């Protein structure tokens, strides 16, 4: 190279260096921005879901603890009436059975909002109960298999319970499956929830684009709160498999 070329070459080297600095700066800012985004996003969904759960718990408790005793009291009072009149006796009978229905519904709704088994006996028992209810109604055959596991926090249990419920709901609503295989187990310090149905499956991108529902995004949020990972394997005609891994 002659001196002129050498000068041009130095200029190029400087330009390449400047470009390099710009690129490095660009990459660093992107990584930092993404980290910030992640934190903000996590805080947001954590707050959203916390609000949701505390509200549910409150409503469930109000229904169960306030309405329940009140209704029972009313029932007692009605029963203490004794009427000679045959028509009145019939009305008392009718009211009695109606109050029973209301009591039953209140318990059902409250249980739906916040299952007592979940709070008292833990996740595995709660899922078992839910699955057994389904079995009786013959909507879907669910094979649930789990060793007795201790799950560190009630919060985790509630999240996982909702996740299982959403998976089962989706299977009933979309999959047209006959069988859902459900497993919950520990492996290498991870809690693994695995669900596989033999239904019609779906196209991943298509479903995300077309879905108006909040089911999957809610599910993803809960798993994110638990710092877990969600994998969905599905193909049209080949069923759907959900794998969820939660670090313990």
């Amino acid at each position, binding site marked *: 190279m002659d001196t002129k*070329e050498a000068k041009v070459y130095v200029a190029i080297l400087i330009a*390449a260096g400047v470009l390099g600095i710009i690129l490095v700066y660009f990459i660093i800012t992107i990584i930092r921005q*993404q980290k910030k985004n992640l934190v903000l996003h996590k805080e947001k969904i954590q707050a959203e879901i916390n609000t949701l759960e505390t509200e549910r718990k409150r409503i469930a408790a109000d229904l169960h603890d306030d309405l329940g005793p009140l209704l029972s009291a009313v029932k007692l009072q009605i029963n203490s009436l004794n009427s000679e009149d045959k028509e009145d006796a019939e009305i008392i009978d009718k009211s009695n059975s109606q109050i029973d229905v209301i009591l039953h519904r209140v318990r059902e709704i409250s249980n739906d909002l916040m299952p007592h088994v979940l709070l008292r006996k833990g996740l595995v028992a709660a899922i078992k109960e839910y699955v057994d209810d389904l079995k009786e109604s013959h909507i879907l055959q669910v094979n649930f298999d789990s060793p007795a596991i201790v799950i560190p926090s009630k919060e985790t249990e509630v999240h996982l319970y909702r996740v299982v419920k959403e998976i089962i709901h989706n299977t009933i609503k979309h999959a047209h499956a006959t069988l859902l295989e459900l497993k919950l187990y520990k492996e290498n310090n991870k809690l693994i929830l695995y669900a596989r149905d033999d239904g019609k499956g779906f196209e991943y991108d298509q479903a*995300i684009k077309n879905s108006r529902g909040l089911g999957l995004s809610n599910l993803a949020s809960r798993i994110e709160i638990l710092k877990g990972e969600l994998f969905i*394997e599905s193909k049209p005609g080949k069923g759907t498999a959900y794998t969820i891994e939660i670090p313990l």
Partner: protein
Amino acid sequence: MNLFYLSLISSFSIALAAGIGLVRFTTIPKTYRPFILICILALVNELVSIVMIYSVFASNALNANIYVLAEGCLFVWQFRQWGSLRKKKWHIYLLIGSMVLIWVYENFFWSHITSINSLFRVYYSFCLIFLSVGQVNRLIVEAHGNLLKNARFLICMGVLIFYSYKAIMEVFYLLKIQFSDNFYSNIDFILLLVNLFVNLIYAVAVLWIPKKQKFMLPF
């Protein structure tokens, strides 16, 4: 170091990514396959180049010209797999169409297919840079984990770095400025280093490609 050896090491460093990609090909999500194909194709192109240089052609221009077109199209396919170019159908047709048009014009009318042609190289470098910046923007919002362990992010960074330099360096060839061979080999030296660096990034990226499709929702 001897420039010849550096160029060999730099060229064949893609073998790392291609090898890992080949081993993992069936176990990774389909959405990453175009990139693996690019790595394998790049390796094949390097091998063919050596044969061509020692053959009667004495130049790898012919296969390199064909290779860049294939690489450009595969990258466009890859970015589409990642969700770019999906808003309007004609975007992808326009992109592929313009790429092919420029390639055909340059190689058959403006210049000759047996000489290294730079117009297409500059053009597709710009296209890939824009596509990868678009992807990176999506990743800021969509990615849920550590970006440095995100294969998509690493590949985009590789594309961004390599094609930024390539676009700039190709301009010297494009303008056919009368510099000495020595000057041009010095320019190549820069690109060789960048190429080596980016190929290593690619290898790491291929290693990080998740086994299963991770569920990600835009938020």
